[in-house]
């Protein structure tokens, strides 16, 4: 392309923009987050998200059972490395997630507003989401000290019990709190060294997907947090029955769903945590005891002698 030609093209673009007066917005493709990448659903399905007055907001991936299984493979692969990180390092990465989220608050507020929250509700939820990450970032290297023990056994042994992550946790994030609710279940599991696969809220998935972009820039190793979108009805049973998932966290209060989850979890004796309280802003919803829900206690015996 010659200089003159290039000049002519620039002029042409200017003209076109002027003619339109308004710039065409670039729409975002909302995708899944698996193994540190952003794939579309292998099923090539989506669902349309519409606003209250019927306007199209976005098309969201309709994640399949196969997507879930791929995510579990990624989570399992990531687990030993993440559990093996120092607690200090895990805390720093959670803090980094909070930093990245803080810097993009405007985007999250906008997305929450798009899905029906008022301005002040969206601001509160986003601020609390950042603070919740910081809360659990701080616990990463402290809960062990609070909840482990040295046991005074009546024999010549040094005996202690410490906590270790349960493994791969599958999380059914709350339906009504797209960002804060999701972070409230993801952060304690991950702070404790688990890797997770989480199904985002079906009706409020935007912030969850955008949160995966935060994760992508937070030095979080690929596969530690995997985020799926789709319908709970389709995926619930698979979340609960997968043989390589060690714990299941269910947020909600549907009696039939809870029963299904508990029934299927027996397949490999998953730890099942039911979170029925939907007030994610309450003080009680952040606690080191939430970390304990996906921890195992290991007791080690060492003889004392020469």
């Amino acid at each position: 392309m010659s200089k003159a030609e290039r000049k002519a093209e620039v002029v042409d673009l200017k003209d076109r923009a002027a003619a339109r007066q308004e710039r065409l917005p670039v729409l975002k493709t909302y995708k899944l987050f698996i193994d540190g990448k952003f794939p579309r659903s292998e099923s090539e399905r989506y669902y349309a998200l519409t606003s209250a007055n019927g306007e199209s907001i976005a098309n969201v991936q309709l994640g399949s059972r196969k997507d879930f299984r791929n995510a579990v493979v990624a989570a399992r692969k990531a687990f030993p490395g993440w559990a093996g990180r120092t607690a200090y390092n895990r805390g720093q990465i959670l803090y980094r997630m909070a930093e990245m989220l803080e810097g993009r608050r405007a985007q999250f507020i906008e997305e929450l507003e798009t899905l029906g929250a008022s301005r002040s509700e969206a601001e509160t939820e986003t601020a609390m989401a950042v603070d919740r990450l910081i809360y659990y970032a701080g616990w990463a290297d402290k809960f062990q000290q609070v909840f482990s023990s040295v046991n005074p056994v009546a024999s010549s042994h040094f005996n202690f019990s410490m906590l270790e992550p349960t493994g791969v946790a599958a999380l059914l994030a709350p339906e009504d709190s797209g960002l804060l609710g999701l972070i409230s279940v993801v952060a304690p599991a991950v702070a404790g060294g688990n890797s997770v696969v989480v199904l985002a809220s079906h009706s409020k998935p935007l912030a969850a997907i955008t949160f995966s972009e935060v994760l992508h820039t937070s030095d979080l190793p690929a596969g530690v947090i995997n985020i799926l979108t789709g319908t709970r009805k389709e995926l619930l049973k698979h979340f609960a029955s997968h043989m390589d998932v060690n714990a299941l966290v269910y947020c909600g209060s549907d009696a039939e769903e809870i029963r299904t989850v508990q029934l299927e979890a027996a397949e490999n004796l998953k730890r099942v945590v039911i979170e029925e309280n939907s007030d994610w802003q309450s003080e009680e919803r952040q606690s080191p005891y939430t970390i304990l829900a996906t921890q195992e206690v290991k007791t080690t015996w060492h003889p004392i002698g020469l």
Partner: protein
Amino acid sequence: MDPKSLDFKTSWEYAPAPEGKEHIKINARYEHFIGGEFVAPAKGRYFETINPATEEKLSEVAEGSSEDVDKAVVAARAALDKSWSKLRASERGKYIYRLARMMQERAREFAVIESLDGGKTIRESRDVDVPLAIAHFFYYAGWADKIRYAFPGKTPRPIGVAGQIIPWNFPLLMAAWKIAPALAAGNTVVLKPAETTPLTALKLAELIQAADLPPGVVNIVTGAGATGAALVNHPGLDKIAFTGSTEVGKLIQRAIAGSRKRYTLELGGKAANIIFEDAAIDQAVEGIVNGIFFNQGHVCCAGSRLFVQESVYDTVIRKLKDRLETLIVGDPLDKNTDIGAINSKMQLDKISAYLKIGVAEGAELYQSSCKLPKKGFFCKPTLFLHCSQSQRIVQEEIFGPVLSVQTFRTPEEAISRANNTPYGLSGGVWTDKGSKIFKVSNALRCGVVWANTYNKFDPSAPFGGYKESGMGREGGLHGLQPYIQYN
């Protein structure tokens, strides 16, 4: 003959040293213990409990129906509401202390009955089961008025009424593991002992009555699987605590799905006992023997998979075979006996089936040359050599004196094979190098790791499994958690 081998042609006979039975009393018949009274079963049915070493009947015991279970749950609820929750926590603790002290007074009686009813050696029931059971009550008694210190930032409350189902391998000890923390945390209980070993729990009921515990705080209903199912399915319970097989644990998790019942499960295992080349080999061999032959191998945390580093394989196996030859199998009441009777005919049949499976799978069977008593249920201590990871005798819990042996070259290989099982209850590591102990014990995905020791238990040490070996801990501060709520 190899100069390093022991000469078994000389006499290894020991004179009999039987424990006396004169000082114990076993009733001809036992009823349920409900609401502080011994109550005849609603359906009027009883079942026999026998001595597995002689196949003689010891007593007959009430068979619990759903009516009996219901009566017990109602009694436990009434006790919770009317007496146990009204007591000061320190007074609850004093009842548990009193029970521990009364058990100490009758320790010998408990030990003999435990050996008679379950087949375990008197040395074990005298030195391990009974003292540990007592220690458990003593330990948790002191927690009763201190529980808030165990849950910082929370206000713990009891869960309510717990249904507790225990196995036949450590009858009295498992009763203590279940009852002591439940009571200390302020709950009341309905306990179902295993059908082959109900006697010491019923003896404990006599003590509970004599200790003046408020009626209904502890209720004991005897019976088999159907009685357990009635308990699990009873809508009046707030919690199920179960120790037993993984298979039944899964059934229980399914049975209570959708109910509000909490549960803790302590299930099966297939523990790896890993011997590194730098281990003190003689100590390790003792640890292997204790790991798999303690309590006839009827131990959920038994070290039933042996991994030996290749360079010391020949030495370890030679010493292990010699040690096997010295083990005395026979009368559980004889103080020289190392391996007592298999708990039941059913269990002996299961073990025998696995011996056939192992041979058919191509593993090399090795057993000691000991003679087994003509009557009763006995099994020779058994090794399966040259096993491979996929064999059923390596993957499945046999729950008998049967050890599968494999070799490894690197620590990484040992760890990865040790973890390659759905179970995750326990494991053993034998090495002289401290840093290696920590590396390996951290890498093992299981709830208890014994380093240069095996099968040690203590009321202050939490016990329980990862993965399909169950959930929840028993013992220690962490053992309170399954019996409290704080939201």
